[in-house]
């Protein structure tokens, strides 16, 4: 069940990254300058869910990424604990002694890059960052595959 939650969170994270990369590229391709920025601003300002919750409980569409990351972090830490790996191993550096640990370290670094990039995107919407986010999300998935293989 934990693995399932982790995978579903990853699917939504990749879907989120893909959406913003495609929409940003499409907006700049179809329109130039202000109209593209205007459309993207509307999207960035939109709230989810649009119905069903009081307005104060809704979150801006870009911020749903924190729900997916939360799912990944909680399920990920739980899965590591089941394997007997704790944060203590991370701080100690003993994680790097095995191949699994080395790949996990790369994966965790990529997740950190994704988090930092997402924060930068929320502060200032630099066009290239959305594409970096997508590449990093795919790289995290590949690292996970490599870790399990």
């Amino acid at each position, binding site marked *: 069940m934990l*693995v*399932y939650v982790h*995978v*579903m969170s*990853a*699917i*939504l*994270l*990749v*879907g*989120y*990254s*893909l*959406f913003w990369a*495609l*929409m940003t*590229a*499409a*907006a700049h*391709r*179809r329109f130039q300058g202000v109209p593209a920025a205007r*459309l993207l601003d*509307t*999207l960035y300002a*939109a*709230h*989810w*869910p*649009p*119905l069903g919750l009081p307005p104060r409980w809704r979150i801006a*569409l870009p911020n*749903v990424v924190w729900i997916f990351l939360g799912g990944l972090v909680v399920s990920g830490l739980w899965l590591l604990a089941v394997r007997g790996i704790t944060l203590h191993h991370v701080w100690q550096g003993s994680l790097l002694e095995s191949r699994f640990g080395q790949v996990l370290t790369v994966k965790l670094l990529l997740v950190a890059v994704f988090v930092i990039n997402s924060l930068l995107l929320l502060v200032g919407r630099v066009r290239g960052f959305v594409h970096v986010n997508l590449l990093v999300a*795919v790289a995290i*998935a*590949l690292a*996970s*595959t*490599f870790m*399990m*293989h």
Partner: protein
Amino acid sequence: MDGYGVCVGLHVVAMLLWFGHMFFGTLFSGIVIKKITPTSTARELRELTLMWGGLGWPALVVLTTTGILMLGMRGATWPDVLSGALFQSRGGGLLATKLILVAGMVLYQAVFGHWPAPRAILGNMLVACAVVGVSVLFTRT
């Protein structure tokens, strides 16, 4: 990384992009864009979401190709598939379940594609959730 690892990586990435696009588009961005005002802006945004086309068929090509290659690398042969011997074990049973579910998704893709069909879309997403579940179980056999 060996050939099998490359196939697994491509298989997983294709699945993530296809299912991710589907789930996020249906559960998050799609419903948000529908409610954006004015409707002209919502229409423009909707057109942008369709600008690059769908991911279903390209993803299925990659998934089918890598899936067949992986089965071959695991020692499965066409006689095993056609005789049903491949599906006798627990892993084989899970694989058969997965293939039936994927066939359902192919049918949805062929019949509905990107047409508005809320119940079919929901059904397709539930099938996709089941495919993920069966895949997780399959990797543990």
